[in-house]
């Protein structure tokens, strides 16, 4: 998943990084095809070059040697709302048919089955990043027809198309899972299967999704990570296997 996400990043882009797999993907891209990637963390570290894998989004390793440290008011107003973030990473307990994400509650808000952490910066990243990449493992409970709670807007929110909501960003352009890649249909905004990992069949993907998943007529194949990528991930970027399973 980290490798697939890394391939989505172009050199020189400004990326709003989350912790875990997104951070691995960004640092893999930096170590390979995108050395000039500018990593911005919501904690206020700009142009971070972490010498160790940050365990939290506010790790001191993100500060030491970074290009700039600014307050969070600047992060959200001058960088994100200003439109300077080209790519934002999102993940969550639920991703629905329209790319909406739930990181708030499973079940009813007042009486939740599971209380999740909440939005953090996800709501505004989903609104303002020029495009977002979603990372989540396939599972029918993780990919319901509709999220229980809409924390981060996708392409259609409670029936209203994204363009009518006045959201500056393009929304989730790709959903990167552990078996396949889903993309939003340009017209309807509905997520469809567009690429599968080696040896994965469309039916295996559909088994992990809670709605009748449409597929693009000609499915692409996702190339597996090459030796260099695997070596970097396993030996350099996450030797303790904190995030690589």
């Amino acid at each position, binding site marked *: 998943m980290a490798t697939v996400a890394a391939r989505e990043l172009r050199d020189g882009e400004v990326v709003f990084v989350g912790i875990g797999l997104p951070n691995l993907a960004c640092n893999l891209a930096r170590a390979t095809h995108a050395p000039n990637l500018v990593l911005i963390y919501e904690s206020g570290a700009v142009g971070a070059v972490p010498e160790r894998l940050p365990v939290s989004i506010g790790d001191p390793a993100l500060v030491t040697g970074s290009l700039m440290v600014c*307050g969070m008011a600047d992060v959200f107003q001058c960088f994100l709302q200003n439109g300077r973030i080209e790519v934002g990473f999102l993940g969550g307990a639920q991703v629905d048919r329209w790319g909406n994400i739930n990181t708030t509650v499973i079940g009813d808000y007042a009486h939740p089955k599971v209380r999740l952490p909440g939005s*953090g910066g996800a709501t505004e990243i989903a609104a303002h990043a020029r495009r977002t990449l979603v990372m989540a493992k396939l599972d029918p409970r993780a990919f319901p027809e509709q999220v229980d709670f809409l924390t981060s807007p996708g392409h259609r929110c409670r029936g209203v198309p994204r363009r009518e909501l006045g*959201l500056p960003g393009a929304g989730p352009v790709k959903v990167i899972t552990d078996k396949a890649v889903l993309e939003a249909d340009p017209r309807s905004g509905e997520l469809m299967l567009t690429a599968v990992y080696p040896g994965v069949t469309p039916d295996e993907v559909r088994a992990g999704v809670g709605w009748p998943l449409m597929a693009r007529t000609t499915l692409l194949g996702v190339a597996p990570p090459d030796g260099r990528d695997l070596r970097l991930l396993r030996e350099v970027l996450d030797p303790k296997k904190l995030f690589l399973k």
Partner: protein
Amino acid sequence: MAAAVAAHVHDGDTVVIEGFTHLICFAAGHEIIRQRRRDLTLARLTPDLIYDQMIAAGCAKKLVFSWAGNPGVGSLHAFRRAAEGKGPPLELEEYSHFGMVARFQAGAARLPFWTLRDYAGTDLPRVNAAIRSVTCPYTGETLATVPALNPDVTIVHAQRADAAGNTQIWGLVGVQKEAAFASSRVIVVVEELVDTAVIRADPNRTLIPGIAVSAVVVEPWGAHPSYAQGFYDRDNDFYVRWEGISRDPARLEAYLEEFVYGVPDRAAYLARHPGLTGRLRARTQVCAGVNYGF
């Protein structure tokens, strides 16, 4: 610390212990627990372990927040038990990070609200009536608003301050400046008390002026298991261990007994963590100074 908390933190107050991952003042949170404050409204972006402990200890009536997890690890289980109806009730008021930052900005500027482009299409305004909207007097477009947050007391941990409370912070600065200016009372807790000459030598580093500070407390290692850039690293092992501790109410209670109620102050807390300072003390990487001459 005991005197500052006794003087400035009262039952029923809205209390903010800020610091985004960096400089979270656990020492103050523990003292508030020891002094058995009740009915507090606890506000901060990321409640973190310290508010999970204060919730478990029964200090909190209400939580105002934007992300309530254990960063990089998992859940805050005392918070989850309360939110999931499996523990003592806890009132929740929830925003996004940007919304909380904006609330502190409005508070610091003493404006009743702050404007932001956010929340369109989300369920947050549906469950939080304080998220409203305003019409732009120039373009006519509708924008989101959040109300000002003006705490009774804000506690800021910092690397250094002088006796008057002129406070310098480097590394992540989060929303500490805004929270301090928004607050009626401010307690600054520092790793190091310095002569005013140290502050005056580099005035651009000063984040909070003494005129906004009610009390200065010197408490080395007061942010552990959070960290202080240039002083000590984050204790990630403890953050990982908190998953198991907080998941079991009995273990959580035992933790509070041993490390909070069971010690009189921070020095005793450190004494119960042999090897801690050696394990986490920061290495030295000092930057060059700049010329303030004219």
